[in-house]
């Protein structure tokens, strides 16, 4: 039984580590700031999530697991806010994303009229 939990836990730890590396590779490969945000969010969610699940399996039914779950909740609640703040700040600073398809017609939510900057 213990060996089964260990195998499962290592599976999650290795998968989490792999997703962290994939996220890093993505940050290096992607063109432009907005595309890099998407690569970074793989590290945020799947990387951190799988590593924490693996650690919970290692810790078992203890207080440590409860704290790990709280950390997971903290990551899930704060990382989208930080990502959104970054993207919004970039947009307001005049850094329009380079897109292949613009389906907004130049209209950004909250702007009165289309701007062509």
């Amino acid at each position, binding site marked *: 039984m213990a060996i089964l939990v260990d195998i499962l836990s290592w599976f999650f730890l290795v998968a989490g580590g792999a997703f962290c590396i994939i996220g890093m590779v993505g940050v290096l490969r992607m063109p432009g700031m907005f595309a890099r945000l998407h690569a970074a*969010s793989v590290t945020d969610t799947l990387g951190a999530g799988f590593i924490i699940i693996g650690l919970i399996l290692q810790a078992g039914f203890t207080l440590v697991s409860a704290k790990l779950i709280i950390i997971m909740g903290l990551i899930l609640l704060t990382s*989208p806010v930080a990502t959104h703040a970054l993207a919004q700040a970039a947009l307001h600073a005049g850094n329009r994303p380079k897109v*292949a398809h613009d*389906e907004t017609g130049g209209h950004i*939510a909250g702007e009165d009229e289309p701007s062509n900057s």
Partner: protein
Amino acid sequence: MLYFASAVIITYGFWLVLSGHYTSTLMIIGAVSSVAVVALASRMAVIDREGHPIYLLGRATWYWPWLIWQIIKSGIDVSRIILSPSLPISPTLINVKASQKTVVGVVTYANSITLTPGTVSVEVEDNEITVHAITRAGATDLAAGDMDRMVTKFEGGAPS
């Protein structure tokens, strides 16, 4: 008052988990500080339906697993894009409509979009969200409105 009580209970539970010492002195100190923290917070008028949306707790039991499944699916999609040598991205900017009625609902929707790898909400205003997606397929999936309906159901509005 109910919001005050539930905020105290949750704060105290949080304190108990972080503390790990269960002697009577420390537990009383914890209880006093939880009440003090919530009292200060309610003077700032953040302990209300919007700032402490405890009524969502029951519905989170089915919304969060659904969201986590979405995160895993699109996370694997984005990983595949990153690892493929040709880097098949088609960045797309799109406006989606948020049909939620409350601020909490719109924020949940915008955060769920950002949390799902491959889509980032760039700007939120009233009931409109500008989304940057890494592929056009991701943008059209989002525009189809599955997640929008799910969040509306989560928020408690009428499913459209």
